[in-house]
């Protein structure tokens, strides 16, 4: 299949909010795999149908050691969703932790063309890239974990911002990573001693630093390096009742930092898990309105929902103490992992129940956040796959956001105490296709800093999804079942100018690209950093520094984005 064919998409109702197009009937052109102003060639009849840019998932756990640990722990999950090979596809397995091939096919079927793995320790990045390379069709990238890294904490302690920036640039290069992920900063280190950090000002054992200093230090380094993405933060105390105060406190630390690009200073991962009130699970309640209010009054932060849905999930995170708690709570199997000088992590299978009040409140919080934040550019639609639910359930989330009657139907099946613990029942707002196109396409691309994704302007990637829905005729509030069905299997998914999926059938499975960021720093800072690192590798690491970095051979379809001190600053 050549990706260089020309293509015309005729007469679709196009939603391209990044370019100010909100449901206009127009023709689209693709040439050389990119959106163009004119083209000839194959015509696709999209008359009257919903057309959007290819979906972009900015936070999903699709590759690497913890995903694979989930697979190993859950042969019961592998049995669900098995599909035999076809002329185009390799076999699929799994539901919450699908095999690599299934990840690509299932995203493509829904009209998604890009997904970013949300957490990779540098030490295990090689494994992540081996899996990313095996995920067909979609473009990918992986965020790199820095929040409990020894070298990071020493740079923060010494208030050596230049060395910290050099450390981040070196780590991204070693991991072939895309951006700075911070998970429960300091907690991974404390967990090595069976403890956790309890707030942003709680000192990290053996390092004279606090989570607050780690977060602000990495945010400043991120902006010094002019990275396309901001810091991507999983708060301290995530998943605990009463943690909304930690969320607000943390966001306040960052409000005066100036972004180096036209984007947020901090992206908050799976906000739902950090919008909790109450003092225990017994008086657990939603604090989504307080969080939403903060986002409505400030412009330095974005979030993704981390929506929870009822049924099977597999929780996986570099927040190891959280997973210890999950395992104790559910008596379920548990994987706990120590990643040398970098992180700790855990995996626990989970089932969310409708009749369990805590789960029902969690379900409501994700929706409240998306409905209460006025600006859809600040809220990305995710389920923190597979922590809240597998990504194949995105059509369910979208229809819940678009239909108040659907939410009412769902709520009627949930624990009767729910209306006392959340405001969801009183929320009348129903999102429209513009909101959805922003939250699933335009905003994730902007949040990640992917200039050629999430829109359909000339030069953008030729990634287009066409759905068997007529926006002019379908009442998304009442016909939610129809909408859900149409979103589950796009009529056409076009990736880089190639029709990869048609009505749920994969027609082509070309390899996707992997984005990573190569940031340059002054040589003097890099040299100072190397002295520290060489000592750490000699003393503590289980491998030699020469064998540490991911080689380019692991990224045969790399797409390198340059950043760093020598890159001219964007003019605002």
């Amino acid at each position, binding site marked *: 299949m050549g990706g260089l064919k020309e293509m015309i998409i005729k007469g679709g109702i196009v939603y391209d909010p990044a370019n100010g197009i909100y449901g206009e009937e127009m023709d689209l052109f693709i040439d050389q795999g990119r959106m163009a102003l004119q083209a000839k060639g194959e015509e696709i009849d999209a008359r009257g149908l919903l057309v959007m840019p290819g979906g972009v998932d900015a936070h999903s756990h699709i590759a690497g050691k913890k995903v694979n640990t989930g697979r190993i*722990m*859950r*042969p*019961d*999950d*592998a*049995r669900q969703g098995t599909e*035999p*090979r076809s002329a185009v596809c390799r076999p699929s397995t799994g539901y919450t932790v699908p095999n690599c091939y299934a990840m690509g096919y299932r995203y493509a079927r829904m009209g998604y063309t890009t997904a970013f793995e949300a957490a990779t320790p540098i030490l295990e990045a090689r494994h992540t890239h081996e899996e990313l390379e095996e995920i067909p069709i979609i473009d990918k990238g992986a965020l790199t974990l820095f929040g409990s890294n020894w070298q990071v904490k020493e740079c923060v302690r010494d208030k050596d911002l230049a060395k910290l920036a050099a450390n981040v640039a070196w780590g991204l290069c070693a991991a072939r990573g895309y951006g700075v992920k911070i998970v429960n900063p300091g907690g991974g280190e404390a967990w090595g001693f069976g403890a956790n950090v309890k707030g942003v000002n709680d000192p990290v054992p053996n390092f004279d630093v606090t989570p607050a200093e780690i977060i602000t230090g990495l945010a400043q380094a991120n902006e010094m390096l002019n990275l396309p993405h901001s810091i991507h933060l999983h708060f301290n105390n995530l998943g605990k009742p009463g943690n909304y105060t930690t969320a607000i406190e943390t966001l306040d630390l960052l409000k005066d930092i100036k972004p180096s690009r036209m984007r947020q200073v901090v992206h908050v991962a799976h906000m739902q898990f950090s919008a909790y009130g109450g003092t225990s699970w017994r008086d657990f309640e939603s604090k989504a309105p307080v969080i939403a209010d903060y986002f409505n009054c400030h412009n330095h932060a974005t979030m993704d929902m981390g929506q929870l849905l009822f049924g099977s999930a597999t929780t996986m995170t570099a927040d190891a103490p959280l997973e210890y708690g999950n395992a104790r709570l559910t008596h*379920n199997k548990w994987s706990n992992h120590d990643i040398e000088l970098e992180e700790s992590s855990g995996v626990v299978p989970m089932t969310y129940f409708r009749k369990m009040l805590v789960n029902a409140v969690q379900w409501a919080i994700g929706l409240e956040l998306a409905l209460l934040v006025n600006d859809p550019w600040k809220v990305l639609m995710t389920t923190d796959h597979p922590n809240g639910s597998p990504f194949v359930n995105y059509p369910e989330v979208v229809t819940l956001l678009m239909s108040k009657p659907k939410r009412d139907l769902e709520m009627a099946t949930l624990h009767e105490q729910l209306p006392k613990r959340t405001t969801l029942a009183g929320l009348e707002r129903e999102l429209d296709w513009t909101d959805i196109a922003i939250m699933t396409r335009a905003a994730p691309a902007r949040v990640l800093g992917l200039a050629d994704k999430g829109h359909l302007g000339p030069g953008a990637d030729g990634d287009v999804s066409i759905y068997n829905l007529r926006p002019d005729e379908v009442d998304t509030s009442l016909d939610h079942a129809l909408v859900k069905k149409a979103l589950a299997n796009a009529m056409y998914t076009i990736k880089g100018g190639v029709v990869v999926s048609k009505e749920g059938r994969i027609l082509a499975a070309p390899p996707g690209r992997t984005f990573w960021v190569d940031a340059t720093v002054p040589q003097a800072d890099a040299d100072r950093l190397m002295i520290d690192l060489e000592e750490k590798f000699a003393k503590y690491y289980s491998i030699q520094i020469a064998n540490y970095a991911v080689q380019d051979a692991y990224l045969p379809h790399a797409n390198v984005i340059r950043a760093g001190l020598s890159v001219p600053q964007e003019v605002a």
Partner: protein
Amino acid sequence: MRSITITPQKAFCISVEAENISPDKFAPLTLSQIKSLVVWQGNRQKTLSELFVVEGDDAPAKAEELTIRLIGDFSQVKRIGEGMTAGVVLAEESVGMHAGNNMLGGLLSISGSADDWLAREMRGGKVLVMGNAGNYVGSGYRGEKCGMRGGEIEVRGSAGAFLGEHLCGGSIRIAGDAGDFAGAANQGGTIFIGGSTYLPGAEMSKGTITVKGEAKVLPSFQKTEIVQIDGLAFQKYAGDLVDNGKGELLVGVGSS
């Protein structure tokens, strides 16, 4: 009553996956539609009639009015009667792995022997085996926390290892011996073993395991009392105490 007879066309050296051999799958179909049901041999997709001779009544009927007779050796044919809710499957000789798994109702009767994973994760109905059964009878499949939840399994011969692992309900009766670790992680089912076994009830939290013959008992079981059942004396144990279990283990005194 509707009757369908299935006979292998030859001996299979590559095993066949035939979850479509089930009263529920056959019920709404005519004979020619049944013949074109899909089965897999290794990684090749085939139709039922490519591998088997299919004969019998043509007119569709309800599953509860349907009897499927398996004539000849089915020991290389897997997943017979998977998920069946009603009706009868009668095998004249032996059947392959995973027979009757996820079964919800009806009768699966096997005159020969059954291979591993017989009636795993069964929820209802009855499975009867005149010969022996393999390992993991009525257990949960890999990674599953719950095995059989309901129904009845009877094996007139012996069973292999891990009989009823992760049992959550229902009852299993083995006339002969059971292999190692019978009733491991039992969470509420009933097991009766007419012969002997080795280390029964490891990690059991609930349920009852009765062994008429001999059993090597784990040190994490505590002797309680001697009880009489049908005129025979049994030593009763509580356990598995490693898991703070509330299970009951009864082992025959002075038999064999």
